Structure formats: C-alpha cells, structure tokens
C-alpha cells in the first residue's frame, strides 16, 4: 500500500480527507483488478469511483439515503436504492467477487444477517469499522463520557451508529457465525498499522472475510 505521508513527517492525526483516501487504499489493496464488487452503504459512491479508477472494477453501490443516491447518480455510479436491513435477496448467490461494507456496519441493526448475506452474494467480504475499544475511546468512557474521536466523530445524541463493538467482539461474532477471517489490519489515527494489542491501539479495523 502507498504510504499516505512520506517517511519522517512528524505524526499527526490524518485529516478526514486523508483518512478517507487511506480507507480506500486499504480496501483497494485487497481487490484484484477487474473484479465485480458490491458496496453496501455506498454513500455518494466515492469508494466505487476510486476502485473503478484504480482497480478497473465493475459493480454496484447499495444505499438507502435519498440524497446519497442522487449524489451517486450525479457521480455516474450504478447505485441501487434498497434497504440493506431487509437483506440482499435480489442478488444471486456468488454473483460478486467482493461485498464491501466500509464503516457502515455499525450503523445497521441486522448485523448478523448482513454479514451472512455478504458472504452469500460474494466470495469475499471486506468490512471496516471504528474500534470502540480504542484507547482514546476507553479514556473517554473512563472519564465518564461517550467517546467522540476521529473515527467515531459523532455526539451520542446525533450519531447514525447503532451498534458499538470492538475488534474482540467482532471476531467473536465471526467465530459464532462460522465466518473465516482471512486477514485483519488495524490502524491508529495517524494511519500507522498496529500490531501490538490492536483492540487497544487500533482506531480503525479492516477485515477480509470468507467462508471457511
């Protein structure tokens, strides 16, 4: 993966724009050229646009929000406006190489169903989410507050997130559902990979999942 900042630059948290590019780059790294992908909760379709430019992928975005759907269409993205919570029954088994859910799983209620559906319609699922147990978040809780951080940038009263979970929790759910974890990456807010105790030191987690 291309480093976001040249070596030797003093560490500072990534700006939202850098963080987005970083997120995209991590995901793109896992997708071979020319694949057919499904992006769940695709927002304005920027990730698909990026993957199509850098990886020549084809595929669709799925989004429920009206304004995001409009922005997708403006961006020339093939967006399909359906509610993922209701499943992906319109899509055939194994019709995609990858199903992606980039920092959107925490905003969905039917977590188990969505993970199951992703691995039904695609050979591989790519999931990224903010780690609730990141040390900054823990410190906020210890100080008596709901965490607001780079990767969880919302106040408790206006957050779109409905599921708060950690790297450890997510892996336990994968084990329960019989989902194979093929690869995991965790990063801190500086965009640096974390290997030492990722559940404490990782702010953002990325998973490559498959059927065992």
């Amino acid at each position, binding site marked *: 993966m291309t480093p976001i900042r040249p070596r030797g630059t003093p560490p500072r948290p990534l700006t939202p724009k850098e963080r987005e590019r970083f997120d995209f780059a991590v995901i793109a790294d896992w997708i071979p050229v020319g694949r057919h992908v499904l992006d769940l909760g695709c927002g304005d379709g920027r990730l698909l646009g990026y993957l199509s430019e850098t990886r020549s992928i084809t595929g*669709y975005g799925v989004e429920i929000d*009206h304004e995001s*759907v409009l922005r997708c269409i403006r961006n020339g993205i*093939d967006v399909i*406006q359906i509610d993922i919570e209701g499943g992906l029954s*319109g899509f055939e088994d194994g019709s995609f190489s990858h199903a992606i859910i980039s920092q959107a799983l925490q905003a969905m209620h039917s977590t188990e169903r969505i993970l199951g559906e992703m691995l039904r319609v695609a050979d591989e699922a790519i999931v990224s989410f903010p780690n609730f147990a990141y040390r900054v978040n823990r410190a906020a809780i210890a100080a008596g507050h709901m965490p607001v951080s780079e990767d969880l940038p919302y106040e408790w009263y206006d957050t779109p997130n409905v599921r708060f979970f950690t790297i450890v929790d997510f892996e336990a759910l994968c084990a329960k559902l019989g989902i194979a974890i093929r690869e995991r990456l965790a990063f801190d807010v500086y965009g640096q990979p974390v290997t030492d105790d990722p559940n404490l030191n990782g702010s953002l987690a990325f998973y490559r999942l498959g059927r065992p």
Partner: protein
Amino acid sequence: MSLDNHSVGIVAPRRFCCDAPIPLKGGGQLPSFELVFETYGTLNAARSNAVLVCHALSGSHHVAGVYADTPYSEGWWDNLVGPGKPLDTEKFFVVGVNNLGGCHGSTGPLSPNPETGRRYGADFPLITVEDWVLAQSRLADHLGIDTWAAVIGGSLGGMQAIAWSLRFPERIRHAIAIASAPNLSAQNIAFNEVARQAILSDPDFYGGHYASRGIVPTRGLRLARMIGHITYLSDDQMNEKFGRELRGGEPSFSYDIDFEIESYLRHQGDKFAGFFDANTYLLATKALDYFDPADACDGDLARALRPARASFLVVSFTTDWRFSPARSREIVFALTQNRRRVAYAEIDCAAGHDSFLLDDAHYHAVLRAYLENIKT
C-alpha cells in the same frame, strides 16, 4: 398566455408516412401506416443526442410546448422537457410520437381501412408494445437517428424503453423506465379488464363500429377512466385531496354527487370521454396485459434481458401501488444478474402512480443528474 423561460414554446406536430408494411406480433400486418410526432431541440451533426419519449396509456406525441392560439395546450410532460429542464432541449433532440393504434393522429382504429374505405373501428388489429417499438424504429430511420442517446418513458412508456433495449440493443444507449414493471400482475390485468368491460358493454359501442355511426361510447369510456384514476392515485393522497368532503356541505341522500371524490372522478371521466377513442383504450390496455418479455424465457426475466446492452435508470415511487417499487426492483435485479449498468432510485412521493408526471423536486433532480451524464 404566458410561457416560462424554460418552455420549448410553440410547437406543431409533423407526420411520418411509412409505405412499407409492418408485421405485427399478434399476426398479420399493416400494409402502411402513419405516425404523428413532435420534436424539440436540434439533432446534432453526429446525430448522437436524440431522445425518444414514449407515452403511456392516454398520452400522445405532444410531450412539451404549446400549440399556437390554444390555451392550456401544454404537452403532457412539459415540466420535464425544455431548455434548462431535466430533459434539456439545449442538449438533446427530443422526439415524442403518438403510437400505432393511437387516437391523436397516428394510424389507429379511427383511420380509414384501405380495404374497405371505412374506419377500421373494431377491425384494427391488436398492437403490442413490441409493434410500437418497431414502428418507432421506422420513424428513427426516417429522422436519420441510428442510435437513441436514451429512450425514456413512465408506466407503459417505461415498458417501451425496456422493449427497445431488447429489440434493438445496438440502437439505444440508455433506457429510462419510470414507474414501470416487467409485466402486469393479475390485479393490474383485472383492473384493465373491468375498464374494457365498461366500454364493451356500453350499448353505444356497437361492436367497436360506433365511429362509423357517429356515436361515442361515452359511458363506457367514462367508467374506464374512473377506475383507472382510482389506481393512479394513492389512498393517502386521495384522502388528503378529497377526504370525505361533501360538495353541498350536507348529504343529499340520493345518487347525485355528494362526495368531492365522486365529483372529481366524474369530471376526469367526462374529460377523457371527450377526447379519447374507446378502441384505442381497449387496444392499449391489451398491449399492457400482453407485455411480458420473460414469457419467451419460461418466466426468467434475467434471461429475457440478456440481449440488452443499454445502461438503465429505473425509478419507482413509494406510494405507487399500481406499479409498485417491488416490480421495478424485479427489472433492476434482472439487470444486475446480467451485470448490466443500472441505477435505481425509489422516490418518496405521495402521489401514487401518477407521480411520474409530477415535478417532485427530488424525482426531477434524479432524472436531471442521470441525463446530464449522458454523452452526446
């Protein structure tokens, strides 16, 4: 009469005469035919900016603009088509056509039958959506349009856009199907059958040969339109618009008009019976009933759509129960199975099936966004 700056202004219909016979899906052929059409905007040198607008059950070639010295003569999709409007006539060359079998000037049941010299009436053959598309392709040939930048339509018009993508995959770059369906449900057909029976059982119908007697089966047409109108609106919107309002304030305890909704339906029925031909109505509802591209593929819509090469925009409306969003999603998922390019928007609009004719801001923004990205 004042026109907004975004109107195409005063327009006039034109006539295309095709002397070559046209074979019909239901068997037989028409030895020749005529289509009335209108165009707005300018065909570019590359002939790559043409958009065909397909009308639904009761529409016509008069899509946009007004007729000289005729008040209230705006085209049926005037809110969409014009300079600076979502279907921008400064970019696109837009063609509206009255379909074969229509009653607005194209060859149809009111036209003289060359074999008898009398009006066709009931002898006019049944026409299918595919026949309409074939006739439209002859008009495209005539206008020098090899490939449509887009074919767009709502309801039955959307079915024509789909049929274009299958019959002439190389001649259509974008198909825009709004408030449409891959076929009619049993309930849809049932409503059509009630409407047809209203016409067929009108004593003034005379087996379809009313016109040669100078008579119109007005009662049947009125009823047909009334039942249609109920299905075009949503329950909520009808309640909001009319509720249980009484025209006279007090119930009359008679069969006269009491409720506002009764008044509205009668008005719509009268208006319709005043300009629409009963045989065309019968024929167009049958075209709807018979449309079913999946039928030739054992009901497998994905297999049926395999020949399509166009990119699709599919749009539905949440309150449309006549052609519900679920029906549009069938089209969408049949396309995704074929890995065709498709965008799908489900618009929150209260107006039911008729929403496709309205200028809901989000709906028009979606169409504008899609149309702006079409290369010409």
